[in-house]
């Protein structure tokens, strides 16, 4: 096992939009996302699509992150930092204060 793949110890899942919010999004295969509540639209890459898909299916964000870490060769520190940044951007795009 890659030594960088340390266990994810703590992650504040509340920073992510709720599953209800993620489930209302219209998401195309190309990563184009439309939020029917805010009217905002934006695009994400394949990694972003994967993260959103996992978070919709897995209410335990820590498990979702572990699954992402399993698929990418990345340290837990880097993963948490990047995912938290993605969460912040998602909240901004979706108009969540």
């Amino acid at each position, binding site marked *: 096992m890659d030594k960088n793949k340390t266990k994810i110890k703590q992650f504040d899942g509340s920073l992510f939009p709720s599953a209800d919010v993620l489930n209302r999004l*219209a998401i195309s295969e190309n990563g184009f996302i*439309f939020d*029917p*509540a*805010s*009217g*905002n*639209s934006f695009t994400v890459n394949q990694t972003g699509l994967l993260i959103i898909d996992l978070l919709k299916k897995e209410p335990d964000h820590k498990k979702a992150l572990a699954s992402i870490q399993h698929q990418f060769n990345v340290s837990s520190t880097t993963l948490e930092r990047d995912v938290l940044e993605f969460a912040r951007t998602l909240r901004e795009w979706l*108009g969540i*204060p």
Partner: protein
Amino acid sequence: MVRHTMTDKKITVAITGMNARPDNPGPGLAVARCLRESTKFTGRIIGLGYDALDPGLYLKDYCDSTYLLPYPSTGDDALISRLREIQEFEKIDVLIPCLDAELPGMVRLVPLLNEMGIKTFIPTAEQLQLRNKHRLTEIASIADINSPETTSITNSRFFLDCQSKGWSYPLVVKGLFYDAKVVNSPEEGIEAFKNIASEWGFPVLVQRLIKGQEYNLAAVGDGKGNMLGAVMMKKMAITDKGKAWAGVSIFDQKLHDASAAIIKSLRWQGPLEVEIMRDQQGQYHLIEINPRFPAWIYLSVGVQTPVVHSLVDLALGKTPDNLANPATGILFIRHAVEHTIPISDFEAIVTNGKHCLNKQVE
């Protein structure tokens, strides 16, 4: 219950507000377009305008005949006299007023219009008063949302010392019936005051600017407290005057519930547009309630919610069809189009105030 819809007989609907100027269109042409494209409507459409260059007066795709009306400032007698002349030719069944400035006069004339056989479904005088721009705070509290502080002024000196009284720039200067301008300095404030007062009269309203994303809702109140339609959209691009140039249909629960609460509380009768601003903290602010369909109402066709059709049914005393929830994610994009018309058409409007576009019924 047996439902009766407009397909029962061919009816004639007159629509005002044919001033579809590209940067700041009146809603009339969009309302006519909604009806014309309705599969259930096979009647005639009469376009009513105030200026010989109102584009809708010349568009035969949407109007069968068109007429000029006297400006609202000329008074009720001139308006009813003109409508009597038009009624002799057209046998209008339903009239849909689409401009803020004409609503007070139209409301006063409802009994006379009824006598002439012209049905309307518009707010009462009391309802019109309640939604006045300077009473936003009362209405916002009904809807359980905020509203920007608004004050009425009659003198442009307000802008010289307003900052010392807590009114810091930028501010929004608004006409009593229409128009709004964001101003950033005393000079801009005074200029906006003069322009708006000269066009819309006194008082002029000054409102604190709320920064955020604007969302609008168009619906019909059935006069019993129920909201029909509820087409919602987010503005995606605006003109210099802040009018929507592009938008997308949405469903915002809080906007829906706030609008339903307003309609229920006022027992609103007729069309309306609710404008709200959602600030960066997620707070909702009621900006305005317009007692008519908005110029973007054609989006109702795109989202398959024929709310204009419902209004006509209500005016005729019929029970409108149940409306499906509007689809989300439908965009509208405005564009400017030039139409060429023979000078004789222009002549007909200028000299007779009348133009028959559909020769079959002339």
